[in-house]
């Protein structure tokens, strides 16, 4: 979480620590590498959204993931991992600093990450079966287009392979 402009934090010298020493404003210094002002631990998430819940300003702490289709990135085939955040249906959240509160939208977020086998190899072999390492194994997806007359009331019988009652009077099931 960063800002390209200097951040407004508390007033320097206005407070003291446990030892009576005046504390600074808390404003983070500009990062020497990319010249951005990163938020520090003195910025908290509070108010309507308890800490740990969805936070648009950072990678969400509650999220789920699924592998997706492969993509070509820089001429290389990469696997994808989709990650979706849980915003708890809340339209906004509040991010406080020491001076004021800021209200932000809280949309559901979706992130897509790309990786390849080399990235999995970098994870090492610990905690894997037989120390064989991590390997991405694509799972073939079998998709079927159900016929138009396929109706929900037939579904249970379909699951158990039993003839189903066709409410329209036709031949039972297919």
């Amino acid at each position, binding site marked *: *979480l960063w800002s390209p402009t200097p951040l407004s934090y508390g007033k320097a010298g206005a407070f003291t620590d446990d030892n009576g020493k005046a504390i600074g404003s808390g404003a983070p210094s500009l990062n020497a590498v990319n010249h951005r002002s990163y938020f520090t631990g003195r910025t908290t998430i509070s108010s309507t959204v308890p800490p740990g819940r969805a936070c648009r300003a950072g990678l969400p702490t509650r999220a789920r993931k699924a592998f997706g289709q492969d993509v070509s990135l820089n001429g290389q085939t990469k696997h994808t991992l989709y990650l*979706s955040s849980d915003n708890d*249906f809340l339209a906004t959240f509040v991010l406080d600093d020491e001076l004021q509160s800021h209200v932000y939208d809280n949309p559901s977020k979706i992130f897509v990450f790309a990786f390849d086998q080399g990235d999995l190899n970098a994870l090492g072999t610990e905690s894997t079966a037989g120390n064989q390492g991590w390997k991405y194994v694509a799972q073939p997806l079998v*998709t079927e287009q159900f016929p138009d007359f396929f109706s929900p009331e037939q579904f249970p019988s379909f699951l158990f392979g039993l003839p189903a009652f066709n409410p329209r009077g036709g031949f039972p099931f297919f």
Partner: protein
Amino acid sequence: MIRKFVNRSLMAAAAAAIPALSAYAAGPDLIAAASLPATYEDLSNQTAGPLENGMPGNRLGGIGSSIAYAGGDTFLMLPDRGPNALEYASSIDSTVSYIDRFHTLNLRLLPATPSDAGVQDSNTTPTAVPGLMAPFDVAGLPFILTPTLRLSCCGARRP
């Protein structure tokens, strides 16, 4: 009915993005991001009535509770027990009579092009901290992610 979300979440200046692609280092990369506004409704219009806490019964949200790949660019997303973050009855953990459902979305990935320069996330509102980017500095991501809600389906009311 197909509702297409135009809120492509790339704030990419693609002119700067494309050259940056070659600089990608090894390791998992964030290649795209998108958002769905929390005030959007899903396609279960018949459940739009207000819940016990006053929220609409068909608000689109909570989709981080589950996501599953269904082939192509189709994904299934499942909200949890509904909007219970707004407290109205602590004795039941503010659980509301939200009807469980799942959503079918197309999450289409398209390579970013120079024409995408300046594309803004329509969900990004002006903030009191100028220039605050969220959740990452997404400028330069090589793909645009376009979510399209296709179906909101088949819930059952919690007894």
